[in-house]
């Protein structure tokens, strides 16, 4: 079936909306309006086109009815009475007046009251131009002020955290910020103090608003009371342009509006994508655009000359790169070339690079993961879940990193489900995490032994009542109770600790999949587009479209001309091979193995051993500095494309600014290198790449350029088609829910701007049966048999995880975030600290076979006895210097340092 139509979306089935048993009809201003029982009047009216003004109501939070702006007349037993539309649920036959004289008078009154103490310093207020108070005053408010008195005064803006400033004079006491902090972020660090007209938002003494989600309060504040330091005074809304895009800082893939002014990114705002981020973002994702704007960006190609990296032209750099690769390929064979990285790339880039590596160069030693993930085949083979499915499950088993630190908005979503719908979360973890407080049961176990915990958990006899891997028997029994008889289980699966090998969680995952055949898995791999990179084949043993190398050999052989003869190496194997000369040429695709690979020494040895390194990067990093050719890449917001989040959801990347200097998108670099390696990748535009992906990648069948451009695709398209349970049509942007997005929109910028479509060449599908998607039997759960032997009495077994603010390049180059990275330290159970004769705050020497260094120790009851927790990569160091990735676990010893600290 060659040349099947490329716009075939037959597989894409939007589920029929079931007839709504809860449907009610109400009457708004004489018009019948359909609504759902229990829905708030304000929302029902809005859907029917009647916009009721509001300040405190936010569709993603519980109503409080405080501002009184939404008063409408609702008919009750004693006739019409003023009621807050944000608080009154609809009822069959309800009669509502939104335009009566009484309603207008009340709304005018509320606006006038709000302005009574408002400083009206609009000309110097960041919100000026996109201010709901300003806008609604113009639409609904009185003409001029009758207020002659002295206004309320407060000290003008006070810093309530390192990122957020509060101007209490501008505050209209809507409690959006305080509710967000409490209800959604779970960080109730801001609250009202005082009462009456002295009511103010503030922090508690000596406790700043240090929340990973603080930027959301700035976004939803309906006035200019809350401002964020990275944006303060940088731009006026009417000078901003915006494009809809996706945050790729982590794999949640929050849908965002990228706003710019004069070719500089000025801010990101979260867009309300119902299945994903529901308008929220984390502060790292929100503010690390500063790195994109950074002066330190690579803006031109560099080549090594006399030991120094010096600028050159693209032509020269590409020729040098191609020549180096070609030489190795000729002398040592294609397997001597390896590609590390790619999880930072867009889907199209990843596909182009996979094709370049596997079809043109001919190597399968390609790995988008830096040894800090899970085996690609396992990730691709497990039945996938969406975030909504996880939040709506009967139980969630969390086997991964601390989501609050690594996938913050996923944490937010799951936390909300745990708090609001009492979603039982069973955490299989090595230390307490941000989720522990909300988990039904936390099974805190010894590093390396997750599989034993899973076996005990899923033991059908359920008899095991003794401790397993350090987990008390009663906790296991409690977890078994939670899981007894539940139908829909979702496992959130990632890499719990970098100080143990990936084999441990992989074994546990396979055990879970076996014990719960109906379970679905939500990936908790963190790097921006890691899922897209794996889908596109940037891993050993796989080809684009979630198929195995062997299963896809014929199909891709016909389409591409060739595929590697045998399975290649993963990141760890590549680094080892490079250290001992089996790999001679290394391509770093936005990869920084020295800082990201769990075992720093192995990464250094690998890079030092490579004869020839090409780095494609946005910055000169510790790793790319070692390259022979450095090719400057465009980053997020500088190039269009698509990306795939941890659900397998494909969303758009928008371009808002041009890359610095002559930096290029990665796919173009692949194409140009291909040409110099003697092959035409046959892709001139992104649309062509997407056509080819659609034609060849089985998991992406039907996900056409056209489908991605439809309104329905605004919330993304989950691959493969037809899987996601529901894709409700996205709501229009409400300027009150998300001030700043709608306002900029008024200035004529489209939210979704597909890149200009050039003429596309036709991609044909090869003859024959397409390969089947990877499924579990194809994947192995990682090698290694059983649990590691327990540590000796003098050692502690290490757990290493990332902090949201760490030593990452994007944090380091974002001035507003860089200072938030906490210094490294080691956390130990108080009992062990005592046992070792140490005190909280002591500087201790931490030694492992790999090396040793000195850090402060802290007592932490969240760390179990016998274990120790360290951050993986803070700016001042981290566990990567202690970890030997060839070992299944990492044991450390602690001793006091005399005469220091």
């Amino acid at each position, binding site marked *: 079936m060659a040349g099947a139509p490329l716009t075939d979306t037959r597989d894409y089935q939007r589920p029929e909306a079931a007839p709504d048993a809860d449907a009610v009809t109400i009457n708004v201003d004489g018009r019948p309006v359909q609504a759902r029982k229990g829905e708030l009047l304000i929302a029902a009216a809005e859907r029917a086109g009647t916009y009721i003004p509001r300040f405190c109501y936010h569709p993603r939070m519980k109503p*409080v*009815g*405080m*501002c*009184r*702006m939404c*008063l409408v007349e609702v008919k009750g037993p004693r006739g019409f*009475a*003023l009621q*807050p539309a944000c*608080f*009154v*649920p609809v009822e069959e036959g309800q009669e509502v007046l939104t335009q009566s004289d*009484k309603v207008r*008078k*009340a709304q*005018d*009154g*509320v606006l*006038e*009251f*709000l302005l*009574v*103490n408002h400083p009206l310093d609009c000309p110097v207020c960041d919100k000026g131009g996109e201010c709901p108070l300003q806008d609604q005053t113009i639409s609904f408010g009185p003409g001029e002020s*009758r*207020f002659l*008195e*002295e206004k*309320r005064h407060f000290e003008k803006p006070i810093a309530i955290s390192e990122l957020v400033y509060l101007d209490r004079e501008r505050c*209209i*006491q809507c409690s959006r910020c305080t509710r967000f902090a409490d209800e959604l972020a779970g960080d109730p660090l801001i*609250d*009202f103090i*005082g*009462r*009456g*007209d*002295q*009511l103010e938002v503030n922090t508690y003494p000596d406790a700043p608003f240090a929340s990973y989600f603080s930027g959301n309060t700035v976004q939803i504040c309906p006035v200019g009371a809350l401002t964020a330091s990275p944006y303060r005074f940088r731009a006026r809304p009417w000078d901003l342009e915006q494009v809809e895009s996706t945050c790729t800082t982590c794999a949640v893939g929050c849908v965002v509006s990228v706003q710019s002014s004069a070719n500089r990114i000025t801010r990101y705002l979260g867009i309300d994508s119902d299945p994903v981020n529901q308008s929220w973002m984390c502060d790292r994702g929100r503010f690390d655009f500063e790195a994109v704007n950074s002066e330190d960006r690579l803006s031109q190609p560099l080549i090594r000359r006399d030991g120094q990296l010096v600028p050159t032209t693209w032509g020269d750099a590409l020729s040098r790169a191609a020549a180096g690769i070609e030489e190795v390929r000729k002398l040592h064979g294609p397997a001597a070339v390896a590609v590390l990285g790619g999880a930072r790339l867009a889907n199209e880039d990843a596909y182009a690079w996979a094709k370049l590596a596997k079809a043109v160069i001919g190597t399968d030693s390609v790995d988008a993961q830096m040894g800090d993930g899970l085996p690609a085949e396992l990730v691709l083979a497990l039945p996938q879940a969406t975030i909504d499915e996880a939040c709506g499950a009967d139980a969630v088993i969390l086997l991964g990193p601390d989501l609050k630190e690594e996938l913050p908005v996923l944490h937010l979503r799951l936390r909300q489900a745990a708090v609001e719908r009492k979603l039982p979360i069973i955490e299989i973890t090595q230390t307490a995490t941000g989720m522990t407080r909300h988990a039904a049961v936390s099974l805190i176990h010894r590093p390396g032994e997750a599989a034993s915990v899973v076996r005990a958990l899923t033991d059908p006899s359920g008899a095991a009542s003794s401790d397993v891997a350090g987990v008390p028997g009663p906790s296991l029994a409690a977890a078994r109770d939670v899981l007894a008889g539940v139908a829909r289980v979702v496992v959130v699966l990632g890499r719990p600790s970098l100080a143990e090998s990936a084999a441990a969680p992989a074994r546990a995952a396979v055990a879970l999949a076996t014990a719960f055949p109906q379970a679905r898995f939500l990936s908790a791999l963190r790097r921006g587009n890691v899922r897209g990179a794996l889908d596109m084949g940037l891993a050993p043993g796989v080809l684009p479209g979630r198929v195995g190398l062997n299963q896809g050999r014929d199909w891709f052989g016909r389409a591409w001309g060739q595929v590697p003869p045998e399975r290649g190496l993963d990141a760890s194997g590549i680094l080892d091979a490079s250290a001992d000369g089996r790999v001679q040429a290394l391509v770093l695709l936005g990869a920084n193995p020295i800082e990201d690979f769990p075992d720093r020494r192995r990464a250094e040895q690998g890079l030092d051993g490579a004869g020839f390194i090409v780095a494609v990067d946005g910055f000169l990093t510790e790793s790319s500095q070692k390259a022979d050719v450095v090719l400057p890449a465009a980053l997020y917001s500088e190039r269009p494309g698509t990306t795939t989040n941890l659900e397998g959801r494909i969303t758009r990347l928008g371009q808002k600014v041009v890359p610095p200097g002559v930096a290029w998108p990665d796919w173009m670099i692949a194409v140009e290198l291909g040409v110099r390696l003697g092959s035409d990748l046959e892709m001139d535009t992104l649309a062509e790449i997407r056509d080819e992906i659609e034609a060849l990648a089985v998991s992406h069948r039907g996900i056409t350029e056209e489908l991605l451009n439809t309104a329905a695709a605004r919330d993304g398209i989950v691959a493969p088609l037809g899987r996601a349970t529901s894709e409700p049509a996205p709501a229009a942007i409400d300027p009150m829910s998300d001030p700043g997005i709608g306002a900029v929109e008024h200035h004529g910028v489209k939210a979704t701007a597909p890149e200009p479509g050039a003429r596309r060449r036709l991609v044909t599908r090869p003859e024959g049966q397409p390969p089947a998607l990877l499924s579990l039997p194809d994947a192995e759960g990682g090698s290694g048999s059983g649990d590691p032997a327990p540590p000796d009495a003098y050692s502690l077994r290490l757990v290493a995880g990332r902090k949201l603010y760490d030593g990452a390049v994007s944090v380091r180059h974002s001035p507003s975030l860089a200072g938030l990275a906490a210094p490294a330290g080691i956390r130990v159970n108080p009992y062990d600290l005592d046992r070792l004769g140490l005190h909280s705050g002591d500087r201790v020497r931490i030694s492992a076979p790999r090396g040793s260094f000195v850090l402060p120790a802290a007592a932490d009851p969240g760390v179990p006895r016998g274990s120790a927790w360290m951050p993986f990569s803070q700016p001042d160091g981290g566990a990567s210097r202690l970890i030997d990735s060839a070992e299944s676990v990492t044991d450390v010893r602690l001793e006091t340092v005399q005469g220091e600290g």
Partner: protein
Amino acid sequence: MSFLDAPRVVTSRFEHEDSHTLSRFVSTGGYDGLRRALTMTPEEVAAQVDASGIIGRGGAGFPTGRKWSMLRPAPVRYLVINGDESEPATFKDHALVTRDPNQLVEGALIAAYAVQATQVFLYVRGEFALGLERVQAALNDAYRQGAVGRDIFGSGFSVDAIVHPGAGAYICGDETALLESLEGKRGFPRVKPPYYPAVTGLYREPTIVNNVETVSSLPWIINHGGAAFAALGAPTSTGTRVFALAGDVMRPGNYEIELSKPTFRDLIFAPELGGGLRPGRSLKAIVPGGTSAFWIGPDRLDLHLDQKAVADAGTMLGSGSVVVMDDTQCMVRAAWRISRFYRRESCGQCTPCREGSGWVENILRRIEAGSGHEDDLGVLLDICDNISPEVSWPSKWPPQQTTICPLGPSIPPAVVSSIGMFRDEYMVHIKDGGCPFD
């Protein structure tokens, strides 16, 4: 005949110095009502209370029997006694708490039995230091007597009670703010609907909130029967009530008198009650029912102390306070003082009350200080209208509100009444640039 001849439903022990002690209490029929109630079914107790026709004494004036019947059936039900009395010039609960705390505890337990509460909270204004001490002592005594706790008086009914001091906010007297406060949160009133305490109250469980005086009446009602209580007063206002009389009268104080039959004139001028004005003074205005009530003038002296009659006259009996103002009082200053109270006590949650209270107070202070403009009066009335739509003079009862709780609509009455009754006095302030009473 004296107005004080009516049965003393709640103040019978006040004549004794040791009225607050357990010995006085038990020697004067203490716990009889509770013992008797426990021999009845809860429904029978509730039926007696319903038959008594008693209207809540906390200010909102809702029939107690009806309130109890609205309690949502649930395994957990709370009873909260509202002793937060903080309305200016209202001091009758203060007396009941301090002078007969045992009766309060007994009444609360009767109510608890009737509504089958699982826990009782006695929320007492924090500033009532002596009262708090005595209620706590009375409760401790009740535990020792077996009147509270497990298996009360061997009846098989068990309920616990605790005393909870308020933390100094008037707004916590509003029942929903009180519940928030009991839950350890800020005293922000809840939005009604849906947060009617009887349906969704303390910790979201069904809850009855009753005033101190209301429950203090229950022992008498059970001992004498609902009908005996209903025989007092008139069907529109049964029983007796404690009026806290204050202001420019010879004999200010708490007076328990029959409802409905006496008039304001009786309360103020009867020699055994207010004893009239000071010599040579004339009556200017009365603030009935607390500072949230619309004022009445001398022309209304013959209005009966009856809930319905007073509502028909456009105001309320409210908290049971009556403040008398004679011709030495500046009406602008009086209105300003009242508005200052609401400004300070607004919880700040909703815009019209938070901002309106301050704005009104600012204007009144300015007028009183001599910097008023003629326009100010129109602005004042319109601000009041934006807090309490269609507020007018002559006044209507009950008021409407744009706010969450009734504190908002408590702001306009003093403003609207004083302007309605004494516009000329405002004009003198404005024209002369100062207060003629200074």
